[in-house]
Each structure stands twice: as C-alpha cells, then as structure tokens.
C-alpha cells in the first residue's frame, strides 16, 4: 500500500475532527478521509448554514476549512484560505482544508460558473466572521473585559495594547461553535486587509512539482482491481456477443463484467487490464445516429425547437430593421469541442453490500451523491463521494463517468476497483461542448448610428429539473437514470452590452444536439461573445468607424469603459477603421483587434486586445501579443487571478485557432492529440494583464470571464489585418486561406 496514503488518517482528538494533512511539510497533503463511521459520532455537521459546517478550530489553534467547493487546479486552495485567514485573523499556514467530501463538507453546489470565490468563498468568509465574533465574545467573558477592548493577532485574542490573552485553541479548541452563520456578523473593512489582496503562493505546488501530490490517478486501496471499460464502436450500439476466450491468455484477468451493453474487464495488474481491453473480442450492432458533419450547422438550424426564449427585448426591433437604414446580417458558428483534460479521467470505488465510497475528481460530488445511490441501489447517506484532484477538467469531462464505471464494476466484483480511461476514451466519450449557431442583424441609420440589433441563437435546451447529466455506465447497463441534457447557462451574453435603442435576443432551444453535451469553460459565453463582438466590429467597419471608439460610444458603464481604455492604452491601439490599408500586398499582414465582455452582464468586466500576423500564402495566424484589462471587483489573490486569466486566454486561443471535434455517422473520430490538436508553446503569445482592484465591490469569478472575448478579439484582429471576416471557428490555416482567397475573388 502507498505509504503516503497510510499517513493520512482521520483522527479523533478531544471530541473534534482532526484531519491530518501533514502540515509540517511544504506540500499539501490531500486527506485520505476514511469512510469513517465515526463521522456521525464526531458530530461534524455538513449544514451549509452552520459555522461548524465549514470551520473547526483545534486545540493547537490550527483551523480546518471544510469547503464544498474544490480546487480544480484553479488556485482557490490559496484564495479560500486567504479569505478565512483574513476574516478569522489566523496565519494562513495554520489553515488546513478538506474539499468536496460529501461526508465532511457542506453542499455548496458544483464547482462551476466561476462561483467558487464569489459564492462559496463569500459564504465561508461569513462563517469565519461569525466565528471570530463568537471567539471575541468568549474571550471577553473569560478575561472579564468588553469585547471592544480586545483585538486578535494571529489567532490570539488579547487586550488591546498587550495584557492577558487567550488563543483560539484555548477558547474553543476541540469544541463546536453550535452557531448559525450570521449574515450580519461584521466583517473587516477592505482597508484593513492584510492577507486578502496580496499574492499568496499556492499551497499545493511544492508537492505537485516533486511528484508528491496525490491525484485521484495515484490513489490505491488494498485488494484493488484495475478496470477498463470497452465502449461500443458506435454510440448507442447494442452488445451482441463477447468472446471470453480472447483474453484467456492474459494472466490475472479476474473477470469480464457484462451488464447489458456495459462491458468491462478487471485485472490484478493495470497493464493486463489494458491488454485485455484491447484484446477482448466483442460484436456490437451498428449505429449511425450522428448527423453528417459537413452539414452540422444545417442540422442545428433545422433542429426541433422545444421553445423560444427572449433573452432581451427593448424598443421595436422589427420596425427598426424594416426602416430605411442600412441593414447588416451575419451568421456565426462555433464547433463541438472537448474539454481535453491532460489526464484521462480516473476514479476508484469501493462498493459493498451496504455502502459505497467513491474517490473522484468530480466538480460536483454532492450533486452526484444521489445519482450514485440510485445507480447502486443504496440509500443516499450510505454513499460517500470524496474529491481528489484530477487533471484540470474545465467543466464536466469524464470524471463522473469514470466514477460510475468504477462503482458499477466494484459492485459487480465485490472488490475495490480503479478505472482509468484511455486517451481515446477521454476524447471520444467525455461529454462535449455543444455546437452554437448565431444569426445577427443590425441596422445603421443615415448618420451611421446603430438603431437596431437582433440576435438569434440555436442552442441545445437544458432539460428542466435534470438532476445531473446522464452517465455512460448506467445508460449502457440499462440502469434507470434521469434522461435529458444540460450544458450550463449557455444563453448568457447573447445580447449586446451596448446602449442601442431597439434590441432583441432570442434563443431557439433545441431538443437535441449531436453528442452528449455538458458544461465547458465559460459555457456558451465564448461563442456568444465571439458573435456579438465580431458583429459589432462588422457594424463599426460598415459605419467606417474605429472599433474602439465605436464601442465606447455605446457603452455607459464606467467599469466597462475603463477596461476598454486601459486595454487600448497598453496595447498601443491605433485609432482607425478596420481593415488596415497600410500593407495590402505584403506576405505577412498585421492587424489589431479588440473585444469586450461584461460577463453574464453582472460579473467581471474584461477587455481583450490583440496583435496578430497572418501569412497570406498559408493562411497561418500568429498571435503576437494579447493585452487584457480585468475587473472582477475585490481581488483576493492577484497572482492566482493572473494565472487564471492567462489560462483563459491561452486555452481559448487554442479553441479558436485549432479545436473541433470530428465524427462520422457512428462515433467521434478525433480521439487523440494528433486528430484534436491544441496550442503548443511556440504559438503562445506575449500576454500582458492589467488588474483593476475594487476592494469595495464584491469579488466575482475569474476562472471564465477572460475566455469570453478571446475569439472575437482574434477574429477582429484578423479582419483588421486582412479584410477577411472569419465567422466559423476554428481559424485553421486552410479556412483562413480560403477566406483570404474569397476576398480577393
């Protein structure tokens, strides 16, 4: 057994939960939280409205934060600690953290939507403020002084200016607060912050860069089997027969698991499981349920609509578009994309007759607790999901499916099972970011003012009340689960952020979408902003206006204006209409582009500027420089924030330049990094970020917003360089070259 795991134990000490995290070392240790029958006896509540749900103070003054939100690689493991350390007045190094364990942490919803700091962290901060108030009252009582005479320094309450003192450990160590979170508990003033707002290093990096960090991929249990699931050659195919003799020569193949169309092999040793999965001969029915990829967007446009939803409406768009002004129209298309996690999904499950424990990198352990209970035929309280880090998922990748695979296999085999997906499994079977189709129309009046703006979007509907995205294993095994589809709030930002007298944005919600969809980073909003901000540039070009000045003319929000102005200043924006005319004959064309988003219309403000070069002969696009001004309110960890913005920019440049899931009529055909290439080091631009801190504004999310304007800024820069307008992603060289040739023709 892995010795690192044996060190991690859940200990009972003085009636309070102590989680051994190896704090003495630089690297964070992920807790090996035993499926502890002691949990109930310990009295650890997971109530999301109780201080004890989130915080425990130990006799030695250490603090454990129980967070329902998890660190998917985003760095909130630092940010959430900062918020607690600040509000509780304890050194950050004294805070341990347990994440996403359904038995130990409150249900704070899934870790998605850029809400970890904005919602999860704000709740935790209020719990800490409530706790600090309670501790001060306790200290005042014990010291016989008024609470207002006391101050807290590094977890010690003392009389101001020196005198008698009591540490948090003395005051409450090992005992519960038994307090609801008080929404009115006074918090520190931002002006007094000492920890929030400063760059704090991530606690997990020393272990991550030395091979000591525990990922779910590394987690092992005694007596554990290695499982591999054999997916059908066509989506929805029926398993007809299995030739078990085809793997009989492979040593240590314990069993073939076959439950209707769920087919898996288990072996004592992992490589033998891999060999068996490859060698196992099975015959399947054929399947051809997928549309013709060449006509994907025709299929989307012709899809069955379950309902139309008006996202925004003011004025009279129909009348304004029918007026005497100049009419513009364009269609934008965003392809199906995959999350593309570097580590294929993996999970470990231990299912017995009366309980189940599942170790998973799921972004939604609480949400899936009921789903796994239902799948396994167990009461919800007997099913525990424990979060362990995976490779970054950027939405719902295959983590939950791998967990379901492992759970089903463990139940069938009566032993713990680890399932590790292959690269082909991950690219082929993780749920996908769905295709998005948008039609935009606008009218300019005789003075060149925008008088009407209309957006229509064709997006897959989110099934009402769907508890979770259906999983592959129960579907294959014929186990009842809720049927439907969901891909997040993909309708947001379909309407423009500008003051235009007549606006209408309508979503045609589609009953179906070709491949199982899920949420992928900044769900929907990257494509919607691509369409909105590209089209705004088209309108600006038609009006003969500088794209930056044209935006500022229609923008009222001072925070929006500021990010645009700061981006333009840093980029060295040249005010002029696009496209540039300086060098129309050169072999390399250079351009500038800008785009803006007010994320979800009520979160972060982001402007993105780019300098690009386009090779006329090859159609190859090189992004030279990206400038981003970013305002997400109060900044918790500026370095963590920069890291997230950099990630948003690079990942979305990759998606915009290169990425498209391919498929035939049966299945996905882009199943590795050769058929689904992503951006590589030589193509990564210089990135310059301007952070705007607003300490008196609430902190809003930063894991997604900077993704939204990337593709539009890129398309606008390509247009500026070449005069060719790209309206379909990805901008691979052949597509760019075709657009350049079409423009010349």
């Amino acid at each position, binding site marked *: 057994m892995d010795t690192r795991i044996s060190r991690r134990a859940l200990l009972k000490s003085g009636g309070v939960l102590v989680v051994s995290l190896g704090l003495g070392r630089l690297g964070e240790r992920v807790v090996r939280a035993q499926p502890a029958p002691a949990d109930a006896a310990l009295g650890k509540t997971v109530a999301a409205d109780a201080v004890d749900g989130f915080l425990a103070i130990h006799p030695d003054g250490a603090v454990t934060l129980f967070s329902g939100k998890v660190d998917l690689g985003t760095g909130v493991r630092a940010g959430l600690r900062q918020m607690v350390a600040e509000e509780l007045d304890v050194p950050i190094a004294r805070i341990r953290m347990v994440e996403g364990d359904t038995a130990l942490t409150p249900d704070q919803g899934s870790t998605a939507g850029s809400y970890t700091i904005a919602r999860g962290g704000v709740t935790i901060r209020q719990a800490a403020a409530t706790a600090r108030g309670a501790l001060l009252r306790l200290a005042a009582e014990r010291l016989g002084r008024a609470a207002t005479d006391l101050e807290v320094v590094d977890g010690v309450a003392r009389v101001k200016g020196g005198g008698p003192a009591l540490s948090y450990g003395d005051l409450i160590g090992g005992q519960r607060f038994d307090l609801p979170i008080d929404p009115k508990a006074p918090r520190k003033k931002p002006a007094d912050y000492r920890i929030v707002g400063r760059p704090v*290093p*991530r606690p997990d990096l020393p272990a991550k860069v*030395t091979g000591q960090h525990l990922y779910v991929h590394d987690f092992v249990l005694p007596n554990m089997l290695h499982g591999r699931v054999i997916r059908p050659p066509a989506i929805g195919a029926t398993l007809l027969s299995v030739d078990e003799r085809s793997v009989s020569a492979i040593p*240590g193949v314990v069993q073939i698991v076959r439950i209707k169309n769920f087919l898996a092999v288990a072996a004592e040793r992992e*490589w033998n499981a891999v060999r068996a999965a490859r060698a196992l001969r099975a015959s399947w029915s054929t399947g051809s349920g997928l549309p013709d990829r060449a006509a994907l967007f025709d299929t989307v446009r012709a899809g069955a609509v379950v309902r139309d939803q008006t996202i925004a409406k003011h004025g009279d768009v129909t009348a304004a578009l029918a007026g005497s002004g100049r009419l513009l129209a364009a269609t934008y298309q965003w392809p199906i994309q995959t999350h593309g996690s570097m580590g294929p999904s993996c999970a470990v499950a231990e299912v017995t007759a009366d309980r189940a424990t599942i170790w998973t990198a799921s972004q939604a352990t609480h949400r899936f607790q009921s789903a796994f209970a239902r799948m396994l035929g167990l009461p919800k309280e007997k099913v525990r999901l424990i979060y362990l880090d995976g490779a*970054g998922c950027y939405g719902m990748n295959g983590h939950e499916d791998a967990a379901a695979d492992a759970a089903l296999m463990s139940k069938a085999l009566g032993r713990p099972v680890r399932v590790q997906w292959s690269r082909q499994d991950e690219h082929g079977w993780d749920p996908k970011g769905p295709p998005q189709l948008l039609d935009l129309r606008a009218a300019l009046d005789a003075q060149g003012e925008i008088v009407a703006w209309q957006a229509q979007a064709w997006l897959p509907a989110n099934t009402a009340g769907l508890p979770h995205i259906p999983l592959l294993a129960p579907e294959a095994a014929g186990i009842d689960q809720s049927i439907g589809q969901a891909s997040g709030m993909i309708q947001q930002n379909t309407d423009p952020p500008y003051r235009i007298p007549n606006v209408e944005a309508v979503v045609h919600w589609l009953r179906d979408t070709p491949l199982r969809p899920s949420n992928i980073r900044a769900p929907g909003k990257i494509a919607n902003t691509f369409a909105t901000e590209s089209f705004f540039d088209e309108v600006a070009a038609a009006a003969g206006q500088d794209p930056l000045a044209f935006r500022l003319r229609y923008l009222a929000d001072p925070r929006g204006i500021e990010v645009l102005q700061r981006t333009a200043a840093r980029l060295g924006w040249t005010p002029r209409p696009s496209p540039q005319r300086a060098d129309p004959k050169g072999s390399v064309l250079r351009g500038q582009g800008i785009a803006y988003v007010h994320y979800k219309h009520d979160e972060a403000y982001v402007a993105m500027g780019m300098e690009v070069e386009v090779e006329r002969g090859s159609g190859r696009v090189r992004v030279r420089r990206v400038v981003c001004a970013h305002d997400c309110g109060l900044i918790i960890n500026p370095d963590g924030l920069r890291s997230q913005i950099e990630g*948003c920019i690079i990942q979305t440049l990759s998606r915009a330049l290169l990425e498209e899931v391919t498929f035939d009529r049966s299945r996905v055909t882009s199943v590795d990094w050769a058929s689904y290439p992503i951006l590589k080091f030589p193509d990564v631009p210089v990135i310059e970020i301007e952070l705007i801190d607003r300490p008196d504004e609430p902190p809003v999310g930063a894991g997604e917003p900077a993704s939204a304007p990337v593709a539009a800024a890129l398309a606008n820069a390509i247009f500026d360089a070449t005069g060719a307008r790209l309206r379909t992603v990805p901008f691979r060289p052949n597509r760019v070259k075709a657009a350049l040739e079409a423009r010349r023709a």
Partner: protein
Amino acid sequence: MARFSLRVNGVTRSVETDDPNTPLLYVLRNDLGLHGPKFGCGLDQCGSCTVLIGGTARRSCVVPVRAVGNQPVTTLEGLGTPERPHPIQAAFIEEQAAQCGYCINGMIMTAKAWLDKHPRPTEAEVKTALANNLCRCGTHVRIVRAVLRAAQALRS
C-alpha cells in the same frame, strides 16, 4: 513472469512483470510507487509521462520495460523533494508555474534533460524545446519563465 533489475533514482530495484513489453510507466507508478510520471495519452503525444533514461528525456508510456536495460532511470521524485527541491522544481514554485499540475512532470523532466545541454537558452529556444509537451490549463508563459529562471539558477 519476467524479472528485471532497474536502477531508478539511484537505487537498484527488482520488478516482475507478466509482459516484458509492459510500458515503463506502469512499472514506475504501480510497482515502484513513483507517481511523478503521469499517464496522459499512452501515445507519445503529450509528455506527461516523461522520465530520464540515461540522461535523455523519454516518454515512459511507450518505452517497454525490457528496453531500459542498465541505463539509469530518473523520475521527478529523483530530482528533489518539497523540502529540498531541485533548482528547476524551485523555479516552478517561484514562478507559480502550475495549475492542475498534471503536465508539470513532463515540463520539468524535459527541461532537465534539455538544460543539461543548453545552459544559456533564449525564450524562443525554451518554447521550441517544450513544443511537444502539452499543457491544457494554459500555464505556458509561467512554465517558460520557470525554465529560464532555472537556467540562470543552474549557471550560478
């Protein structure tokens, strides 16, 4: 059952395997408990599994254990520890050059072999050296900075 003697991180280890073509990655992770190298693709495409074999960066997902022979193997764990990180590891911490961290093994091990031969790299050269290592979180600019910082630290 085939038996192999491997010299890994300076220690000679004996391993048994049913299949002499078992990729080294599985032996390192499952038999020797070395989790620095990661399974990323099994196809020699991403670099997450990179180790040093005889000083050369190799993709352990496609190196059969029988092919290792007497050459010394170094994994991420063999470079340093959280308490005593190798200068390259220290540079990655200093630059906060990881998000999920899954690819970082490949970045550090590839950089180690490459910096041994290219002690004074430019930024463009670092990017080229890492061109076949994939990162999905978008940590590239920090990784490049970390390698440049490490190069400087290793020179001084």
